[in-house]
């Protein structure tokens, strides 16, 4: 097989100009695919980390039955003594932060303006890592020791017409179903990039949230890890520890809770797959053209090889190896070129992108040229090269020896 591969390799370099054009078309196709794949991987990663660090954490712990009873009987599915659970999980290696939250919805009023809001009660000293993706546009974020203060979303501030220092009244119903009212002073305005979220977002200390809900319990415990990729390993360990308690819990991972992220990944992956098919077809036509030309040009050689005893399968292998060789050369050059493109974009400070749908701010995009992206691009171009060599290889093997020898 080595000699056949060597013969195929020499045949690739026989017509340098044609092979170069073919390899170039593969490299261009590869780079288009890897750049697009790198872009969407970057987008996925950004969206994933935003989703995790602004809202969901890597996983959430609820009282058993939370998802069934959270509307009809919210009081029964709140978690008492969350600190007990947090202390039990805190020493697990890979766990970064464990905190708890209590959220509710209500109506916020400033003067004559009233807006529907989504209030979240947090522990300020434990939420610093969750605030990575929040940008304070005015004032400050919550601090440990804060009592009757709050931070509101940028668009909510506009809706309420509130300024830093203004008092906001929030009317809600407690977990017991009683109408309750709290007041807090606006100390900061933040934006997360999500216009919808920023239009309803209110963040207050958990004590104030518990006062509004007339409870000393919490709704959920949120676990943030050092590394998102560690979740599959840590989840069973966390569940195992929870099982040791005399209470029942249920857990949800960020992926189960992040419907928007899942929808975006599904959409982009679909687009990538369609794009991969298009690139694959272009590469196939290019390689098929080269291989067909090669078969026609070397018909007499094919006849000679058959005459001296080469079986048909050897000719099929010879031309498939040529296709494979072209695909490999194109793929390897594609990898190098993809890294170069990624490096240049990094060097230039990224590609300025407009705000995505539903977001309020643009961002700098980079190409996340990962092994996964390169592997997919490599597989597409290599497969296209081999598949497009099949017919020419088959055709070569069926050439009539006598007719082939006449073409010298």
């Amino acid at each position: 097989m080595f000699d056949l591969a060597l013969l195929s390799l020499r045949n690739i370099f026989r017509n340098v100009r044609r092979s170069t054009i073919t390899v170039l078309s593969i490299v261009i196709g590869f780079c288009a695919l890897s750049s697009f794949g790198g872009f969407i991987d970057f987008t996925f990663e950004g969206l994933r980390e935003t989703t995790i660090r602004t809202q969901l954490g890597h996983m959430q712990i609820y009282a058993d039955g939370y998802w069934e009873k959270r509307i009809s009987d919210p009081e029964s599915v709140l978690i008492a003594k969350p600190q007990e659970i947090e202390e039990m999980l805190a020493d697990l290696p890979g766990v970064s932060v464990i905190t708890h939250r209590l959220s509710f919805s209500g109506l916020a009023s400033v003067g004559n303006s009233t807006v529907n809001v989504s209030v979240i009660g947090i522990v300020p000293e434990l939420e610093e890592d969750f605030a990575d993706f929040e940008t304070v546009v005015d004032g400050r974020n919550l601090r440990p020791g804060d009592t009757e203060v709050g931070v509101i979303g940028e668009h909510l501030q506009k809706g309420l017409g509130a300024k830093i220092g203004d008092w906001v009244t929030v009317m809600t119903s407690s977990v017991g179903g009683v109408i309750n009212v709290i007041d807090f002073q606006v100390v900061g305005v933040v934006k997360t990039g999500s216009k919808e979220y920023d239009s309803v977002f209110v963040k207050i200390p958990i004590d104030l949230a518990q006062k509004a809900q007339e409870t000393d319990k919490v709704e959920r415990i949120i676990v943030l890890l050092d590394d998102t990729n560690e979740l599959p390993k840590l989840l069973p360990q966390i569940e195992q520890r929870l099982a040791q308690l005399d209470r029942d819990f249920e857990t949800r991972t960020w992926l189960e809770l992040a419907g928007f992220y899942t929808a975006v990944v599904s959409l982009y992956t679909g687009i990538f797959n369609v794009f991969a098919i298009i690139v694959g077809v272009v590469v196939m036509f290019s390689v098929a053209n080269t291989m067909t030309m090669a078969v026609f040009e070397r018909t007499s050689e094919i006849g000679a090889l058959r005459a001296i005893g080469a079986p048909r399968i050897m000719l099929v292998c010879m031309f498939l190896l040529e296709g494979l060789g072209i695909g490999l050369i194109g793929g390897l050059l594609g990898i190098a070129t993809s890294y170069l493109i990624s490096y240049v974009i990094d060097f230039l400070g990224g590609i300025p992108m407009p705000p995505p749908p539903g977001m309020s701010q643009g961002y700098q995009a980079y190409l996340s040229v990962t092994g996964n992206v390169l592997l997919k691009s490599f597989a597409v171009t290599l497969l296209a090269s081999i598949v497009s060599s099949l017919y020419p290889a088959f055709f070569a093997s069926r050439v009539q020896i006598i007719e082939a020898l006449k073409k010298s």
Partner: protein
Amino acid sequence: MSVILLKSVCKSYLSGDGRLHVLKQTDLDIKKADFAVVAGPSGSGKSTLLNLIGGLDRPDSGLIEIDGVELSRLTDSKQAAFRNQKIGFVFQSFHLIPVLTAAENVAWPLYIKGVNRKQRMLRARELLSNFGLATHIDKQPDKLSGGQCQRVAIARALACEPQIVLADEPTANLDHKTSVEIMDLLCSLNKESDVTFLFSTHDQMVASYAKRHLYLEDGKLIENAVDAHIDEGVGCV
């Protein structure tokens, strides 16, 4: 002992004016170590006859036996293996693989046969050295003269130690001096081994080398008839 046996072989082709009968009930019996020539005018069917004997084409009817094996009974892959091991081909246009060196060209039939790389390269170098091409072993065909290419082609034909070498107009693309050298080479190979040589030519000088003369005319082989058509040559006796 017959190494090439043809009985009532017919072969025809479709041409513009209808069917062209190239071979008509042709019989032939070539013995081991024969050095035979098939002569005849262009288009008389010399190449067709050699192609049929070499298993490169199939007859319309009749029997072709090579070394006791009826070729038409073999599958395509078995025919290929049979050609590889029993028959060597020398073509008018050499048909060397341009991207391979002289030694690699000679070694290629051995590769097909499954001989390991070391042994086949050793055999190729030995053959090329015997043919006076020791200094051209690593050259590709485009760096060789016509005569050198044909010697490489002959070495390739002999690489698998075949019983038969079929040479279709082996000197047609060569000048007179080189033609003589090639025929001398084929002649000496025939004398030194039991290999049967059957070649076609329309060159009377080349035909004069043969021990046995066959003339193909109007689809029929005529034994010794070539003598009447040729001048006296060097001969291979």
